């Protein structure tokens, strides 16, 4: 099966093509606030370079967040558009923090604590443990959540042996900082293929925001009471 993997939750758009378990091509482009503009040319060029037609694809996997709201939705809408053309196309949502764990944890590293910038002194964090003997499979030890940075640092300190991954500069010693890139799309693809190989149902094709919209927060502030947020 041929799979297209996408990741656009950060300041770049990344895509990768897989033929079975084999990663055929991958590429990333800077796309700060330009995910909608950059994604289609990127995917088009990857497909052309590989000599594939879009109709050759059997599945699309996409990082579903957390991350830039518009970036996440834009990449998911792109996959949706591909599936409108080919209704049999399988769509697989992949937790973005798990993709970071898969992308950047050194081979053999047993676990990964991922903390990505959530703005205002907060981070999106999760803890994953590798499933022994199953490449591309991780167990979620700490569910993805938006927490204060201080709390995340404490949790990471307790997760002894976990490789600490962040996209931020200036965290205490022991954290490895990375930026978005093609490696993330490759990781999204590997996670989707590994899950598929084990017969796991595809992850939800909708963003995992982990943060409520400003509109909802403002509404509840202005309308306190039992009906708030209805």
């Amino acid at each position: 099966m041929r799979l297209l993997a996408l990741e656009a939750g950060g300041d770049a758009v990344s895509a990768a093509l897989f033929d079975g378990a084999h990663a055929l091509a991958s590429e990333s482009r800077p796309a700060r606030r330009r995910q909608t503009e950059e994604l289609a040319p990127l995917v088009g060029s990857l497909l052309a370079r590989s000599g594939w037609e879009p109709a050759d694809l059997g599945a699309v996997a996409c990082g579903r967040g957390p991350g830039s709201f518009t970036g996440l939705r834009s990449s998911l809408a792109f996959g949706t558009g591909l599936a409108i053309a080919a209704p049999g196309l399988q769509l697989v949502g992949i937790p973005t923090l798990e993709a970071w764990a898969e992308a950047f944890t050194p081979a053999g590293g047993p676990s990964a604590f991922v903390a990505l910038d959530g703005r205002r002194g907060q981070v999106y964090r999760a803890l994953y443990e590798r499933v022994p003997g199953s490449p591309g499979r991780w167990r979620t030890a700490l569910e993805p959540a938006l927490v204060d940075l201080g709390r995340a640092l404490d949790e990471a300190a307790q997760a002894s042996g976990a490789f600490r991954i962040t996209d931020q500069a200036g965290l205490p010693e022991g954290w490895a900082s990375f930026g978005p890139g093609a490696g993330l799309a490759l990781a999204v693809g590997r996670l989707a293929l590994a899950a598929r190989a084990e017969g796991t149902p595809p992850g939800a094709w909708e963003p995992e925001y982990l943060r409520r919209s400003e509109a909802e927060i403002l509404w509840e502030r202005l309308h306190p009471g039992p009906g708030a947020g209805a």
Partner: protein
Amino acid sequence: MVVLGIETSCDETGVGIVDIGERRVLANVVASQHSVHATYGGVVPELASREHLRALAPVAAEAFARSGLAPRDVDAVAVTRGPGLAGCLHMGLSAAKALALALGRPLIGVNHLEGHLAAPFLETPDLEYPHLGLLVSGGHTALVDVRGPFDRRRLGATLDDAAGEAFDKVAKLLELGFPGGPALDALAESGANAGGPALPAARPKGGGPGFSYSGLKTAVRLHLERERAAGREPDRAGVAAAFRRAAIAPLVERAVGEAVALGYRTITAGGGVACNRLLRTSLERAARAAGLRAVLCSPQLCADNGAMIAYAGGLRLGRGEASPPDLGVDPSLDERS
């Protein structure tokens, strides 16, 4: 040529499929998000974007089912690129790009307002250029000299709120819920013969070519405050009827006046407010009295929809235009773009 059009500029997810040469709508499916936004009393852009993402696939599937066509039967993909809510526009545009790529068909970005001006052609085979176009929606209110499909000139526009925006805001003052425009229209029908308060028509202070709704809206608010302060329950139907008359009359007068001045024979009206009953009846009556013809779309083509985008896109494709794959949204386009 069969064109699929995607519309996601505000709170309606629309997919239309149109045979351009035949000017025939093969499908025009719209999913409304009104229930999502009703809680907030207005369209919440972030929530609207989320709903578009959910609705796109089922709305497109329904459009194909109704048209009896398969995706490969589509010759091009048109999509609204502006004006509208940025996050919402991104949803339609991203899906449209992928669809065009997957089908190996051209993509064409469309000005939403050009779509509204093109819509009347889908129901009126003998409609011709030039004519006068009245754009009245929640986001826009303008009179347009429509000389050709790509040649138009603004004759006047609102200086503040759009007509539909004023309807929604006054509906809120009258506690009619969201979206308030249609509810206000219905309430006004029941008070159509009542006098209601004296309200200023939606014309700019000191004259001028455009429209102005802020003074009218404020007058309604002050009237309601005065009534309630005096311990009287306001005559809501009367207020609705008086507001509707004051909001609609300048649109009709200006449209007919400009058409006569230009020597045009036809006036078209598009946008959600073109569904308003008083606008429809009074524009038809005034046009007829002036020896003109008023062309009013059916409600589904007046409101935001994908068929009008497909048709407007088809006209541009017909003269060799196509959009690049790195096309971006343009939330601030106007009818002159």
